[in-house]
């Protein structure tokens, strides 16, 4: 009996061994899957197509150069509905059903905050590519986009010194980003000795700014600064402002070039600041724009400050995995803080407490939707975002 049991076990082991080596061999050929959650519906849906395109271009370029660790890279896109509920579904699907190797996403802060616990549970690297209100910290997350410390100052300084504004009205979407940005902006304005005469919020998906526009006009403010969710709220606010005849200097902290184009003539003269505009005059940016044009042709959506960081993040992930030599999360996370990728926004390294120093630009939207750069700031530091993360 015992002999036949041992014989049986040995036979099983002999039969199973080739299966083991076969799956190891299959591992080498299995693609590296990058998951991207983005707002295909909801507020961000205006910018989502450009984000997906930028991600796709990076993946195509990496595959043409041999992939990651010799393996093909594949993209899985999920719709996070631009909000927390959708993000939960999207991340569960990406991390636990599709079993992606990393998540690289441009999302609203509401979606990001809902996603972080899931990312922590799944223990995969997560690169967040959207500008946001700062101070979001998680050992699995790296951010290559700007935070208020890098952006707000340029707008407020320009308004007060070049346009002589003294009183400000603040308008935002009612969630982490809107409130966080405007809290920082208020402190900065007050520290400059100027006044904030109003601060109003609308829910993220809200599109009726009537009461807020009326309050703005009644307040007699010299200038308006807004920080709404990216995409639709920017357009509805601007349209309603212009329809009501509001002409005070308008600094929009959260508009990207793609959205500015959909505003049509209403977007003219809006001031904005960011880390990417298509008019950035460097050879690397021109090369990138040419590649986008070639890949997508007439379907190309304007690359913008929400889509270009996505392109750079995919490449940064590749460089990090190359440096780490494997897909092991801890090794990749260490490498992400060390690699530098030279992309359309210049050389970027996410080594400042998981954030990155960036070149920033202050611009003004023109009648055709493009952004004319008024001032440039090199290598702006993000400040102390996550002091507890090494």
């Amino acid at each position, binding site marked *: 009996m015992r002999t036949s049991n041992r014989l049986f076990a040995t036979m099983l082991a002999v039969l199973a061994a080739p299966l083991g080596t076969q799956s190891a061999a299959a591992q080498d050929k299995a693609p590296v899957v990058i998951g991207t959650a983005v707002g*295909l*519906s*909801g*507020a961000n*849906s*205006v910018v*989502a*197509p450009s984000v997906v395109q930028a991600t796709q271009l990076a993946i195509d370029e990496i595959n043409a150069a041999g992939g990651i660790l010799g393996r093909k890279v594949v993209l899985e896109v999920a*719709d996070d509905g631009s909000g927390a509920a959708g993000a939960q579904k999207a991340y569960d699907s990406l991390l636990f059903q599709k079993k992606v190797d990393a998540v690289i996403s441009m999302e609203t802060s509401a979606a990001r905050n809902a996603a972080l616990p899931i990312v922590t549970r799944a223990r995969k690297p997560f690169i967040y590519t959207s500008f946001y209100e700062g101070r979001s910290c998680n050992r699995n997350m790296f951010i290559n986009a700007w935070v208020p410390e890098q952006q707000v100052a340029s707008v407020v300084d320009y308004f007060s010194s070049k346009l002589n504004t003294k009183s400000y009205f603040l308008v935002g979407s*009612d969630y982490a980003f809107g409130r966080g940005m405007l809290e920082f902006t208020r402190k900065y304005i007050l520290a400059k000795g100027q006044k904030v005469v109003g601060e*109003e*919020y*609308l*829910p993220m998906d*809200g*599109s*009726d*700014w*009537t*009461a*807020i526009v*009326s*309050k703005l*006009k*009644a307040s007699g403010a010299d200038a308006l600064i807004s920080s709404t969710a990216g*995409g*639709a709220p920017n*357009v*509805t606010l601007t*349209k*309603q402002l*212009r*329809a*009501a*005849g509001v002409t005070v200097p308008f600094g929009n902290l959260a508009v990207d070039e793609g959205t500015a184009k*959909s505003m*049509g003539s209403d977007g003219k003269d809006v001031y904005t600041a960011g880390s990417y505009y298509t008019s950035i005059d460097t050879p690397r940016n021109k090369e990138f724009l040419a590649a986008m044009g070639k890949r997508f042709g007439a379907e190309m959506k304007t690359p913008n400050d929400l889509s270009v960081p996505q392109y750079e993040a995919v490449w940064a992930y590749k460089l990090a995995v190359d440096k780490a030599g494997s897909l092991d999360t801890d090794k990749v996370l260490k490498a992400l803080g060390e690699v530098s990728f030279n992309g359309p926004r210049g050389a970027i390294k996410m080594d400042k407490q998981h954030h990155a120093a960036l070149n920033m630009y202050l611009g003004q939207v023109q009648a055709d939707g493009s952004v004319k750069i008024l001032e440039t700031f090199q290598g702006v530091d993000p400040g102390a975002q996550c002091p507890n993360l090494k």
Partner: protein
Amino acid sequence: MTLVLDMLTTAAILYGVAAGLLIVFGVMKIINFAHGAFLTVGGYAALLVTHLGWNPWWSLPVAFAVGGACGAIVERLVMKPLYKRPLDAILATWGLAIVIGQCITLVFDRGVQFVQSPLTGAIDFLGISYSSYRLFVIPLSLAVVGLLGWMMNGSRLGLVTRAVIMNEDLARALGINTGMVRLATFSLGAGLAGLAGALITPLSSVDPNMGVPWLVNAFMIVMVSGVSLVSLGVACLVLGSAQVLVSTWANPILGGLTIVVLAAVILRVRPEGFARA
């Protein structure tokens, strides 16, 4: 002054949205939960007009026609078999709303899109400047009221409709084709919803779910306003003004709740709402 205009224009917009729902409720005694979906259809009709490059003013009649056509098809296919089962009919409209929303998503994609406004800029009068498009909504809503009122009181269809509202079985016994009346009413209600959708989109945006928040508010207003178009106007004025006042003096987030909460309170205090008892 701006505040007063805000209240009037908000009431006018609410009236446009709720009128179609009220008519269907009055004649068919059911709440058409697909009203928000017809609103969305109207919004997308306006989008099509923008894409085709036509003059944006065309979006209003086109949206009305498209909404009305959808309503007619829906009435014959979905509502007619359910005449004897009003509760099931209400459920059917809810399902219809979901189906229409998904069909729109299939054709137009989930993203938020924008429509060109027929009237841009602000006009100065009485010491303030105000959005000319918003001001335009007031005469348009009044025109809709006027037309509906004339139709109800001055035309044969209106007479027949009022008979059906009062007592459908008796009307049928008198030889009135109640099926025709229901078809006409539902199509008109859907057409009005489409018109309202085209009316609101230049101020905001179009997306497959744009009708939902409007449906909730319209539903509460119709509940509070009884059956007459005049009491609907009063309800819109009161609730719309309350929303603007709360949004202005407190904050817009509470403002969004006002109509629903106030309607519930009114019904508690006076169950017949604004209807003349």
